[in-house]
């Protein structure tokens, strides 16, 4: 310890901080580019399942989210609901939602749009199936069952 103290106590000059703004700006730009605004309030509980064979989406802005789960607000009941953007929706509103979203993109990349179903693990497949049928009807066939990666207990 003593040796460290000695070497630092040569003179009382402070560390040169003139490069600090550069570093901070660099961090700032990194976060501006790497993150996106938290644009929606999540109103349903979505504890997604854990699976092992996950894939990442390559282009985040090309993903439409459909959230399915029991409402967080207990006064809204406990039955699973669908959330599109930041409001509750019924199954028959899924088609309009997808079409509206699709029209925001140039035709060339419309085929690459993915729908991500972020559903709570307790949801029954009946509701998910209805959503899937709606997606098929508007020809939005790329689908992602949102899940976290991890070890699965189903493996011996």
């Amino acid at each position, binding site marked *: 310890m003593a040796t460290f103290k000695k070497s630092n106590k040569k003179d009382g000059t402070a560390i040169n901080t003139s490069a600090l703004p550069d570093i901070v700006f660099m961090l700032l730009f990194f976060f501006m580019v790497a993150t996106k605004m938290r644009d929606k309030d999540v109103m349903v509980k979505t504890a997604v*399942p854990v699976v092992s064979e996950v894939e990442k989406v390559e282009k985040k802005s090309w993903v439409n989210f459909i959230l399915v789960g029991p409402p967080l607000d207990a006064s809204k009941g406990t039955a699973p609901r669908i959330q599109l953007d930041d409001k509750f929706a019924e199954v028959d509103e899924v088609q309009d939602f997808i079409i509206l979203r699709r029209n925001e993109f140039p035709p060339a990349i419309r085929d690459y749009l993915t729908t991500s179903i972020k559903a709570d693990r307790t949801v029954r*497949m009946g509701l998910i199936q209805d959503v899937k049928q709606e997606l098929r009807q508007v020809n939005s066939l790329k*689908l992602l069952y949102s899940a976290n990666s991890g070890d699965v207990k189903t493996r011996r």
Partner: protein
Amino acid sequence: MADIAFLLLVFFLVTTTMDTDKGLRVKLPPWPDPNNPPPISTQNNRNVLEVLVNANDMLLVEGQLLDIEELTEMTKTHLTNDGRDPRFADNSKDAIVSLKNARGTSYERYVEVYNELKRAYNEVRNEYAVNKFNRDYDQLPEDDRDEVQDKYPMKISEAEPVDVGE
């Protein structure tokens, strides 16, 4: 200067998210065109591995109750059978896995089953890649990868929903 930048930095840290979206990628079958109905499948029965998940999250594979732990092995046997066992596919290129579920199946179980099927395909592809090219599947160049995909095309059919009990 640094103060302002720090302020901005903290603002962005708080208001933005960085969660990358992960999950099981699935391709849905197109909506059937009423004027142009899909051809009736000529697939041989043995080429289809039927997986059924009921409302109690129980698994029925080819008419037999099965634990989910055994599903990957079963699927792999089906894919790599090459005609040996008459109960399974006679050719990996024609092999199909058909997944059916009830409306009451829990989403978690459905995704787990899907995951097992995907794992079976991934493992089979990887074994083939290691045998043939001495390399893991995800390290293969594009051409070789296509060849492996051609040998083991991922055909997981999500059947038209049937109501098999709530």
